[in-house]
């Protein structure tokens, strides 16, 4: 474990997290609750397996949709946002 921290922005709010945390861990630490809604049923979903298998943790990271937040390491200033509904083709 490291005592180093970085500041990231979870749905716009700054939060200090361990420098080796994943974006999904940062969202959980920030108490975000659900991190996306299902594109089919609109159900609320949150990170589950935390190891890249279940795809429940898809979030918008630095503007890029559908990233697996559990597989992305934080970096200073990272924007980690909820992904709501289906991604748009644009």
């Amino acid at each position: 474990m490291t005592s180093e921290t970085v500041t990231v922005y979870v749905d716009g709010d700054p939060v200090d997290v361990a420098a080796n945390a994943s974006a999904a861990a940062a969202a959980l630490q920030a108490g975000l609750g659900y991190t996306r809604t299902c594109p089919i049923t609109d159900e609320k979903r949150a990170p589950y397996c935390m190891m890249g298998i279940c795809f429940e943790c898809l979030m918008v990271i630095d503007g890029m949709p559908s990233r697996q937040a559990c597989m992305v390491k934080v970096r200073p200033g990272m924007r980690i946002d909820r992904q709501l509904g289906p991604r748009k083709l644009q």
Partner: protein
Amino acid sequence: MNETAECVVIGGGVVGSAIAYGLAKRGVKPLVLDEGDGAIRSSRVNFGLVWLLGKGDGMPAYGFWTRRSADLWPAFAEELKAYTGVDTCYVKSGGLSYCLGEAEYETRSEIVNRMRAQAENDPYEACMIDRRDLVRLMPQVNFGPDVLGASYGPHDGHVSPLNLLHALHAAMTKAGATYRAESPVTEVRPSGGRFEVHTAKGVVSTPKVVLAAGHGTNALESDLGFDVDVLAERGQILVTERMAPVGLLPANGVRQTAEGTFLIGTTNEDVGYDTSTTPQAGAVMARRAIRVIPALAHARIVRTWAGLRTLTKDGCPVYEESAQYPGAFLATCHSGVTLAAIHANDLTEAIHSGKLGANIEPFHSTRLRAQ
């Protein structure tokens, strides 16, 4: 274990299941003998089109057969949904084949004109449409600059092929068929006007057998006096993440499913029974899809897969009764999804009555051996 059955259908894919459902509806209780999850099963890996465009070039009977199935599809989808609760997600949307550049537009026009000229009462009613028509049909889609137009068929549509297979299995068993997985047929022995169907688990004696075994056909057909030879052709598919629906009409290279994924295809490869995917083919398919709809460049690919088409030498279906062993029928085709509706109706009616009539005669395999 030895048992008897009124009829045995060998194969539980979309072809065998549609026939078994049709037979069960007519009061027969067929036994469906199927392989397991490890089978090479085209029913599970296909693009899900209900498709007329390009079918039966040089064989108008196939065009009319396909058109009749497309006409039966709306009621068939309703029937399956009402009977089983499974929605096949069928939409008679009309279908497209995009033309990138002048040369493709010319080639496509020639095909449409040639096929229209082959048959009186043109079954396709296809036409060429230009870029402005495409934009009018699909106002939410931004097409790439190379898209000059497309051929358009009003009777084409699409369906969820997995839901279709599920619905057919539910329907046939509800109607009285018995389905048995993990029961590959090893041999069929004609004997005294009946058939002994052998599996590892026992022998079934039946007066009527329907061979609808897809890629399993070749290993069994000579037992029943057939000589068709089903060929394998690989097709690869890219699958994107689910995205918001954009009102895209299905095309033979790209469609958006009811769940929102884009399916991007495909290849035509002669590689035997190899079902692996290749990055080279993926790159070619993705490049073309992006030329049609540039925004797809940002879509995330979540899966790739490959399936093996079941083809005869001329690409058209074969339906026939064995001359040597009456009571034995064979059905094989490339388009088990498109033809599911007619298989459960006209084809089953013929097999049930024991007479393959004038509408089915053109599909006899003698044409494959004639030069």
